């Protein structure tokens, strides 16, 4: 089992193989993401009942929570890919890390925007300097810093490794973001979904949210594969297999 995985991993690390496989997978990811998101949007916006306190306003969680979650997930992904690239010197892993950054930054921005829209009716203000929102903002800065460092370096291999170090250093910040709700007791609610014990959210409200997370993940997969394909094309533009792909 493990051996088979290692073999698969090594094969995927070769750009032509990856390129071909990614081209095959992308539509699957994309269309399943569309279907899952559509079903869950219906479930969340129509089927789920209104909240006893927040009314219909709570429905923005179906966009806010998955994007906030994705903003962290993508960052961790990026750091893991960067670490793999740094330790085993796999160029494809660096390409994955590089492709993650703009996607993660977009999710972070989306989480901030939806959080702010949600905050207006719920807290009475567009922006609260609470731990979670602030950490999310710092996360956005981290993404921007990562992309800036990458673009400041002319040599791709040096840019790969330097930004990998930055991603790994930045990932130390991610647990601080996740547990900030516990650490700094502020206005934001605790993490509803992972609360153990008595369920504090009814099933009719919960399943569209969990489904949305899956949908966002699939969507991320589709975008990531597309971006990595572009990255690989740019990096390997002088190699022979690219010409074969381009001709066919």
């Amino acid at each position, binding site marked *: 089992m493990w051996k088979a995985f290692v073999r698969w991993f090594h094969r995927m690390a070769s750009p032509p193989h990856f390129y071909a496989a990614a081209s095959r997978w992308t539509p699957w990811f994309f269309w399943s993401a569309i279907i899952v998101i559509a079903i869950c949007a219906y479930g969340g916006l129509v089927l789920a009942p209104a909240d006893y306190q927040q009314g219909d306003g709570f429905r923005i969680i179906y966009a806010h929570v998955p994007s906030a979650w994705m903003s962290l997930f993508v960052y961790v992904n990026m750091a893991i890919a960067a670490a793999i690239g740094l330790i085993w010197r796999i160029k494809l892993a660096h390409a994955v890390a590089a492709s993650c950054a703009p996607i993660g930054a977009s999710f972070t921005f989306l989480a901030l925007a939806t959080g702010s829209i949600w905050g207006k009716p719920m807290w009475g203000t567009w922006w609260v300097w609470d731990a979670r929102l602030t950490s999310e903002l*710092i996360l956005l*800065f*981290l993404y*921007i*810093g990562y992309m*800036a*460092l990458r673009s*400041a*370096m002319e040599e791709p*291999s*040096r840019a790969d*490794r*330097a930004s990998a*170090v*930055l991603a*790994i*250093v*930045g990932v*130390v*910040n991610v647990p*601080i973001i996740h547990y900030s709700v516990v650490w700094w007791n502020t206005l934001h609610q605790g993490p509803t979904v992972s609360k153990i014990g008595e369920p504090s959210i009814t099933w009719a409200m919960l399943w569209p949210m969990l489904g949305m997370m899956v949908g966002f993940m699939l969507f991320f997969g589709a975008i990531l594969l597309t971006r990595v394909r572009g990255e690989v094309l740019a990096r390997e533009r002088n190699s022979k297999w690219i010409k074969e792909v381009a001709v066919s």
Partner: protein
Amino acid sequence: MENVGIFTAAARLVERDLKVIFRHVSEALNPLVFFVVVATLFPLATSPDAALLRDMAPGVVWVAALLSSTLALDSLFKADMDDGTMEQLALSPQPLAWLLLAKIVTHWVVSGLPLVLIAPLVARGFFLPTEAILPMMLALALGTPTLSLIGAVGAALTAGVRRGGALLSLLVLPLSLPTMIFGARATDLAGLGEDPSGPLYLLAALLFLTLSLAPLAAAAAIRISLD
């Protein structure tokens, strides 16, 4: 012909760096002057109202400290990269992370410690109560080395980049925010006559964490910059 231990090597590096700094001391004083000037800007930009200034004091001290420490980072590795002495450090038999730690400590003694010492003056100018001065100095003494350590990683990453100043700030400031938040919070609590020990413990935790990990990251970054 006997190899030297890591402590002797570190001591010699500190000695060399101090010698270099004291031969053009005016440059080393810039961050300190910057700190005082930035703090002076706030009353001029807002108002000389004592109550307002007292509320702002912890924030002003920490923002000024963060900015001045970021400004000072530029000189941390850049000169050594430019004259080739960083190559010699990287090729010395001593662990590079350890040597960089020695450099960071020297750098802090020259650019961070004076901040801690002059901060009471600034704080009094902002009418911070006397009993808050010592906790504030303690918070700065715990926090500014952390800022130097985190900053060193950014400085190492941008050491090979031409005109990396703005980029350096962009990388370092977000990572430094927790330190600034806890530091300002500790100062604030002390100013309100409350117990600042919670955030002070967190500052200490951050200091030890960065003390153990930041030199490793900086060494990895320097090797990449030298490549």
